[in-house]
């Protein structure tokens, strides 16, 4: 029957359109259902990757936010790692070309107690957000604290004035 053939065609068409849309949406983000997040070992320099599962949102800003929030949380508590201070969270995130700007909450200032913590924490943040599979095209991270650009953390050692890239470590 003509009507039935039409309906079948329509359904097939809809499936193809939706499938194409879904594939394109997924590919936008290098595909994967997971991203790689890095933490820094207690030697202060070694980056260790671990995988976290992404939720269904794959737009770059959501993925950048998710990745940054994962770095701040760090690996599970039984793993020895240099960690961002408890309570540090992402206040906002902006993508601007090849730079991602992360606004961290003020708790991060508690890590200004020595070169090791600051170096290790920002290294894990930069490595995570510049992983080419997570945010293709992003190679630099600019840090803000409580909404403002800073030269260093208060009493800190690590320079936050300029965007950071992997070559800073």
């Amino acid at each position, binding site marked *: 029957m003509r009507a039935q053939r*039409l*309906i079948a065609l329509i359904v097939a*068409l*809809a499936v193809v*359109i*939706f499938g194409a*849309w879904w594939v394109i949406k997924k590919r936008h983000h290098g595909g994967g259902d997971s991203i790689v997040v890095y933490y820094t070992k*207690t030697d*202060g*320099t070694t980056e260790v990757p671990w995988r976290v*599962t992404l*939720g*269904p*949102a794959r*737009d770059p*800003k*959501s993925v*950048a*936010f*998710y990745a*940054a*929030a*994962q770095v*701040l*949380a760090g*690996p*599970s*508590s*039984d793993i*020895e790692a*240099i*960690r961002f201070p*408890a*309570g540090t*969270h*992402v*206040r906002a*995130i902006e993508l601007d070309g090849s730079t991602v700007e992360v606004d961290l909450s003020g*708790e991060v200032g508690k890590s200004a*107690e*020595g*070169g*090791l*913590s*600051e*170096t290790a924490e*920002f290294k894990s943040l930069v490595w995570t957000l510049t992983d080419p599979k997570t945010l293709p095209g992003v190679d630099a991270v600019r840090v803000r604290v409580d909404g*403002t*650009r*800073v*030269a*260093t953390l208060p*009493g800190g*050692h*690590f*320079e936050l*004035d300029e965007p*950071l890239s992997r070559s*800073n*470590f």
Partner: protein
Amino acid sequence: MNHFRVRIFSAALVLALMASELAFAPARAQSPPATTFWFAGTRLIFDSPVALDGDVAVAVRDSGLQRLLARVGASISYEPQQRYIVITSADRRIISFTVGDARYAVAGVVASASFAPFFDGNDVIVPLYAIARALYVQPIAAGGDTVFEPQIGALDVRPDGRRTIVTLHAATALKYVKTSETPERLSVTFSGVGSALSPNRHIGGGIDDVDVAVSGPVKNPASTVTITAPKGAQHLIAVTASPYDFTAVFGPPGVALDLDAPSPNAASGVSGTSGGMAAGGPAAAGAPVAAAPPSATPPLVASPLPAAPGGQPPPAVATVPQTEATPQSGAASVTGVAVDVRSDGGLDVRLSIDGTATYDWHRLRDGRWYLDVADSKLRGPARDERPISPAVESVRVRQIGSPDAPVVRVAFTLHGDRRVDVTPADGSLTLSVANADDNDLARTGNGQIGGATVASSSAQSPAGPPLAPIAPQPETTPWKFGPPAADGNRTIVIDPGHGGDDAGTAHNGLVEKELTLAISLRLRTLLTQAGWNVRLTRETDIDPVSPELLSAFAGDGRPNSSDRAYLQTRCDVANASNARLFISIHVNYADATSVRGTTFYYTKPQDVPLAQALERSVIPVAGTQDDGVVKSNLYVTKHTNMPAVLIETGFISNPGDVRLLADRNFLQTFAAGIAAGVKAYAGALPAMSSKTDQ
């Protein structure tokens, strides 16, 4: 169905599929829940809770949710225009929700909430009960109320060599009382928490079983946890990094149970504590509970620091203008110049003078001081010296003025506001620089050599110098005899980290700013003895800052201008004095008490050889763990123009390093290691007396 309707239908189908993917707003009836919320004995008020599908919908910014999260030590990250809501629990589990998806993940394990988070204007609405449960808080209906009961939510049993570590994670800080205890069996009651753990579990291995019993009313529950180990075992309650955790270590006799300092005989088997106590807070993080009585801890008081002479370091050394002159006939001749460092560290310059001459001297505000002998010629070579004196950085004696009016000038660059006494005599003039500051420093004076000797000084307006004008020169104009080539440059800047209001890191009775100054002062002595012209960015307990930089950065639109000014001030001490090397001294800290050792941080490629030389010299004598030469983006190594290294000497958080840092001999040894590294890097310095300019 015609073709037109078909197209509409297919477009609608696609849109419906896309919309269901995003599912921004569920279309369901919503009403406020008819209940009062409680948490740990206090009422919890939400701004606008809405009962929804068996859960309660609240906005992420709801003050009640924020309070609940704060009470359980969790933090939430959310920003409009992206779709994830990430909550981090006190025990670093990540709970992530996605807008439009009812599934959420707790530490990677996917669960399902009764509704998906959705946008509501600029906020996002989340399922309260799902969040609470993920944070080990159980919503319990009790009469007309809803009680959020904090619970012991997880039990970890982890073999660690021959010992077994048992850790409980709870929603709230754990307060406990030991209810019964034998070496192999520990029973502890936690007040204020319920439990989601199964009542009895057989573990095996180093632990036989763990029993959990909950008692008391819903609003004030108590949980008793009993851990039983095989016969003959012993145990130790460890202090945990998080107050939300409780950790007990079990093991056979003879096995060290102390997690931080594994010494074979440390464990006493039974913790000496009794009665209620907190399971440890961040301040006590990682310290062993029963490892050693307090009297056994090493003395951790910082050694008293030697009084540092001088105040703030002089600012940038600007140049003194010089007018070259051909010596011609004059009324007087300077026939000899003797430069001697006194045993007290001060300096004498003695000019031998033939004839009669007048002189005048001036003190500039930047540490320079000069004396002109009018109408006189210098017989002999000019002098440009950097004596080994803590009072004087440099001494220059040379001919200036014009052929008609030749002048011999003696110019000092002083370390601070050093007093200079000018003593004329028949046939000589002696300039004595004191190795001490003077509060009442005259800024100018004059006198006469030969004939009637009249010396006077005035603290008021300087008498106009009779000859060459002394306006501070722009920095672009180099010294006529100025900075020696790199291999002959003997200026080194040492930067004692922190100071003044910025104490740096402070733990275990030690304060970073004191240790960095103590090492730096010792280092200055050693380097000065080795022929270096040493400048410190601070000599006392101050945080040096240039007022010019403070105002400059305040006006440059960059936030946090003060921190920039403070660190830039330290860099500028080195940059402006054209120092050959810059070494910054710091003390490190890590949350993990096991982290220890010395790190040599650098930023610029030119820093690396210096960092390596320091590493090679310091580590063998200091005896600290070598944490290596590490690249980082540290401010002071980045913004200095010369090879620069920031040494993190040791960890104020590690018991072994603390023992070292509290020992004055170690500070001296460490300084000696640095001095040896500087020597290895720069080579033996040319002897001072052979150093002359022309």
